[in-house]
């Protein structure tokens, strides 16, 4: 841990390239990185094309383009569904939402968790105890259960489900942040900052958060896949998007009655979810290893 700022800069860049080198040495993490980057690119391109009103998808995701349930072919890459819509276009057009939910939920959990946990860690005492018990209670809430209640009361929809996910997602980050903050709280440079009259808030933002954010970022990388997985479960149950808006989980649910006559319909969207989640877990594992070997 660096005690003054002049020493931080050069070592930090060395740290990043070192971590990158460690990351790219591992075949698995390259594979994960490749998947993640392609999902992000697809999401960005699809989102941009909707914003700019440019058509890049081969067909409209919501319009009937073929007589119905055609098997995969060169013309319709993943085949067409029971209503004659192109499955490939539907799957691709759902990418931005699912990826964005992953980042939004993890991002907000990161911010809330870092502030709450970090503050509890450096403050200590009774406030720490109260904050952490409060965190424990939220930590123990089962995600799906809470999502069901919120759907029942506030109604279904992407925003409400994102709120449900955020409510249960931050405690893990608060615990992590507190643990990390406790590790640095009694180091000399923090004591020095405290002695020179800095308040808790300044110490938190200037000294503690920059130091604990590395570990938290590693955890967050691993976590995005989990959010996508859980969110797909909510869309499977019909809690998030409403037809005809396409979504991966919702597609598996919609098409599962055709698994004998048209198995590709439920297989392709399901495979895309698995692939995305695998990508994030491999990348996360790689980042973790790279950080540990550093």
């Amino acid at each position, binding site marked *: 841990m660096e005690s003054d700022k002049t020493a931080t800069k050069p070592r930090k860049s060395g740290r990043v390239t070192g971590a990158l080198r460690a990351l790219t040495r591992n075949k698995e993490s390259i594979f994960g990185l490749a998947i993640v980057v392609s999902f992000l690119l697809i999401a960005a391109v699809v989102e941009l094309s909707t914003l700019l009103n440019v058509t890049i998808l081969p067909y409209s995701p919501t319009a009937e383009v073929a007589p119905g349930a055609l098997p995969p072919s060169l013309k319709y890459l993943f085949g067409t569904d029971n209503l004659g819509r192109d499955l490939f276009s539907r799957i691709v057009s759902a990418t931005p939402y699912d990826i964005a939910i992953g980042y939004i939920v993890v991002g907000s959990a990161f911010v809330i968790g870092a502030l709450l946990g970090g503050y509890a860690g450096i403050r200590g005492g009774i406030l720490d105890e109260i904050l952490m018990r409060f965190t424990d209670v939220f930590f123990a809430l089962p995600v799906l259960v809470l999502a*069901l209640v919120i759907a029942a009361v506030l109604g279904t929809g992407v925003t409400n489900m994102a709120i449900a996910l955020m409510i249960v997602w931050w405690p893990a980050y608060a615990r992590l942040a507190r643990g990390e903050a406790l590790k640095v709280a009694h180091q000399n440079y923090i004591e020095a900052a405290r002695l020179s009259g800095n308040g808790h808030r300044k110490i938190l933002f200037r000294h503690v958060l920059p130091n604990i954010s590395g570990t938290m970022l590693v955890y967050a990388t691993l976590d995005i896949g989990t959010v996508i997985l859980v969110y797909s479960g909510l869309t499977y149950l019909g809690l998030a998007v409403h037809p005809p808006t396409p979504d991966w989980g919702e597609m598996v649910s919609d098409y599962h009655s055709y698994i004998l006559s048209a198995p590709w319909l439920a297989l392709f969207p399901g495979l895309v979810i698995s692939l995305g989640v695998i990508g994030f877990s491999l990348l996360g594992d790689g980042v973790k290893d790279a950080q540990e070997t550093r």
Partner: protein
Amino acid sequence: MNLLRFVLRRMVFAVLVLASVLTITFVLSHLIPGDVIQAWLGKEAATQPKLAALTAAKYHLNDSIPVQYYYYLVNMLQGNLGYSPSRGFQPVTSVIAQTLPYTLQIVFFAFIMTIAIGVVLGVVAARYNGTVLDKGIRIFYLGAYSSPPYFIGVVLLIVLSFVLNIPSGYAANPNLTPPTAITGLPIFDSLIEGNFAYFESGLVYVFLPALTLAVATFGLLTRVARSSLLEVMQTDYIRTARAKGLDEGSVFYRHALPNAAVSLITISSLLVTFLVTGTIFVEDLFGYPGMGLYVVKALAGTDYPGIMATTLVFAIIIITTNLAADILYAIADPQIRLG
């Protein structure tokens, strides 16, 4: 801290969590726009004026919020969970009584399968660490736990549909006489009664949903089993065992395995949470008539009491198993009681 104090502390905490689940549901239930009774009883509330009056009286819906909160808690704790519009206004308690045993059956068999697959693969992966077998197992568990349970169910249905052709909506062949309730779980009751036809049919019907959940979950276990075994194999006492001249097999199975087993208890509560919430997906997919299927139907029919009650039961199951896992862990590993 001694064991008793630890257990008491965890119990108080479990009650606290349950209380907050109740409070959250209460607060949320008061955020519903419009008439509470209308929301609770659904669109058909108008056709059930008696029920509406009864509900209003029981929950003191015309009184102040704190009074309502008090009666809400009292009713919940007494098991008065309201009436379920999606089930013809049956009392929710009796719907739960009908559906919960089936859900528990799935969880039970899925738990056994998860442990079996998870531990065996974890042990094999650690024993043959770094070989092709280890890598193959890694690909398998990574793929399985990165996939949503309903997708694994779809794949299993496609692969096994030619072998197993089961009508949806039942927990056993509907032409067979179900057993009388002894333990409450039909599969076990039929075994006790000697009703083997039902027993066999029950097992066939529970097989796919349970296997689906197990495949979606075992990866967690394999991963932890493998890494904790490898960690134990690095310790001094294993080196001592080797120095004594024991062969690698008995060092691994007799000395390392029992010690690594303790770490598995820590994730057992996570496993149960996974399995319990996972029943919602597999019951929906396979049409298994448990609580998960009920909650999906309740969601579709905006059956508010049904959703609230199943939520509460799911939460109770998860909270109590977490408590049990904590206690088990404290007994198995004395160090944790100090923490």
